[in-house]
């Protein structure tokens, strides 16, 4: 029983960065923009998130407000990067895949360069610690599973219903879905396609920045150039895995990280089995599920990856 509780209680916080970034990518893709630059935006968020508390505390404890200022800075700059990306792919209609790779390199390179300039080498920060919910965290089994986490864990899981509500129950969400599915039809009824795509990319960028800051401020509590380590690309894959739906994306993120926690626990048991296969397990799982999700292709935004030009007939 303890074995299972440990896996579950670790899988939940591990999933947060992926979940937040995937939700951001979902907004991007729902509006018809494929953002492979998520990794770069996360890297910038990770760096800027820890820059504020590090600059003030130099490794020592700082009042919690500075950590949250770091989160806000990361989120804000993420939104700006999203707008910059929108400028490239929406206004200038650059090929989204290539521009995304450019954004990924730009983000990772800029974060690494600024890190070397302002901080120097790998440094840690006290970061944001676990905040057990009084009373609830003491409930046997459920307490450690659901009520003994970092504040951002609760925020991330609250973002799931919030994203669902925004996407499916608000006029703005309807516009996002419309421009990602039938931009010409949306345009014909007066929706400003490019403006909505700018907004969706700003939201996506902000969430990518927040996801990066979670890694540097809450999970690892340090930064190095390679902190994201491909998680931005996994977030993109999880959007497909979750069929562009917040709840399914959450399921995908949890499945991935629970598999991760499981493989770590199995390694710890000392079973005679090559660890390389266990390390592969979460990635293999995502590939298998994607391969067998036949509906996925049908459910995606039909204009995903296609630039919109209202002057051009399709």
């Amino acid at each position, binding site marked *: 029983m*303890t*074995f299972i509780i*440990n896996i579950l*209680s*670790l899988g939940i916080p*591990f999933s947060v960065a992926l979940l937040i970034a995937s939700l951001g990518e979902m907004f991007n893709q729902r509006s018809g923009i494929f953002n492979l630059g998520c990794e*770069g935006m996360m890297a910038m968020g990770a760096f800027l998130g820890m820059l504020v508390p590090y600059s003030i505390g130099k*490794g*020592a404890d700082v009042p919690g407000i500075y950590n949250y200022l770091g989160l806000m800075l990361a989120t804000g700059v993420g939104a700006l990067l999203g707008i910059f990306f929108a400028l*490239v792919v929406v206004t*200038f*209609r*650059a*090929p989204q895949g*290539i*521009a995304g*790779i*450019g*954004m*990924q*390199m*730009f983000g*990772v*390179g*800029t974060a*690494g*360069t600024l890190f*070397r300039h302002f901080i*120097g*080498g*790998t*440094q*840690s920060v*006290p970061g944001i*610690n*676990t905040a057990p919910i009084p009373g609830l965290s003491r409930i046997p089994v459920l307490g450690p599973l659901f009520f003994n986490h970092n504040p951002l864990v609760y925020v991330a899981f609250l973002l799931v219903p919030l994203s669902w509500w925004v996407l499916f129950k608000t006029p703005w969400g309807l516009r996002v879905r419309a421009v990602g599915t039938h931009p010409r039809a949306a345009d014909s009824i007066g929706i400003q396609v490019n403006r909505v795509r700018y907004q969706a990319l700003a939201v996506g960028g902000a969430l990518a920045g927040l996801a990066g800051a979670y*890694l540097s401020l809450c*999970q*690892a*509590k*340090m930064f*190095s*150039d*390679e*902190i994201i*380590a491909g*998680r931005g690309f996994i977030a993109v894959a999880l959007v497909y895995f979750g069929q562009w739906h917040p709840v399914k994306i959450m399921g995908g993120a949890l499945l991935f990280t629970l598999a*991760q*926690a499981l493989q*770590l*626990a199995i*390694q*710890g*048991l*000392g*079973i005679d*089995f090559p*660890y*390389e296969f266990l*390390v592969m397990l979460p990635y293999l799982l995502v590939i298998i599920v994607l391969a067998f999700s036949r509906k996925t292709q049908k459910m995606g935004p039909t204009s995903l990856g296609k630039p919109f030009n209202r002057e051009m007939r399709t």
Partner: protein
Amino acid sequence: MKKALFVLLAVLAIGLLMVSCGKKETPTATAPAPAQAVAQPATVPAPTPAPVAEQPKPAKVIKIALIIENTIDDKGWCQAMHDGITLAVQQNPGRIEYSYSEKMKPVDAGSAVLQYAGQGYDVIIGHGAQYKNLITEMAAEYPDISFAFGTSSEIVGPNVFSYMPQSEETGYLNGLIAGMLTKSNVIGLIGPVDGGDAARYNRGFVLGVKAVNASANVMVAHTGSFSDFVKATEVAHSQIRSGADILTGSSQQALGGLRAVADYRDKDIWWVGQDLAQIGIPEGYKVLSASSYNYAAVINTLVKRLDAGIKGGENIPMNFNNDGFVFKFNDATKSKITSAVEAKVNEALAAFKGQAGHASVVDWSSVKYN
């Protein structure tokens, strides 16, 4: 269309520029004048005029270039080599001129090697087994230059040195400490991959634990990466939740493990490290001991070999016997170390220091932990 293409190229160019800016150029650490290295003959007072001593020929300045995949301040693998060369520069005044190139992926490193070769460097070190193929090819192309790579015990050419830390020794010492001080009898070990010196460290650690506490359970888990310290934090949290109260790990990813241990500020959960730099960081209050590579031993050996006209074809071991390792208890946590632990560690340390050559006291290859 042209406009879009222009913007796309501009974004890519900026991206590439920023990535390349992350790689430091090759500053020269020090280049003292060769004359400083001339040994002064001893003067002995004598009633008769002393014969005129022949002035030794000024020793040649050896230009060493280092190529690393991370940075010189990564508090791990690359920093250890950089610190070692810097120390060797100080220990051999006027003898060594040193430059380095950071963040060199094996596919990019070829151009750096060519530049160093063109600039007349005497020794080019690719610090990591991933540079083996590159070094082997370049060594064949430039037979007058000495190359070195590690960690490996392979001999790949007459002008190539390899170096191999016998990390089972440092692992063994940390294992003794962990085995004697664990209260839960569960110990966590965070490995990057099961290969090279990491495999030796891990197995030495297991042997150390078992030598003093046969019933202890050593939980071994690999992250599959040398640099993904986020994953190392996940492993550490997983092991701590499973009862581990002393943890260890190697390579730069291990810093994530230490960071996770530091999250348990008021709990009896400790870290035994594989890098002395870990003692000096804010999380150092959780470090009981650390042992570190002293690559100055490798560099000093290289200098001696080059002075003797040997350009390669040898493996240089690193161990306590040739001062290739440094071990230290953390003064800040010394109160946790009992006299029995200290005696046991000192006994093993003395055995390692007395063991010359490649053979190690610790038979690391016999350990199978999964």
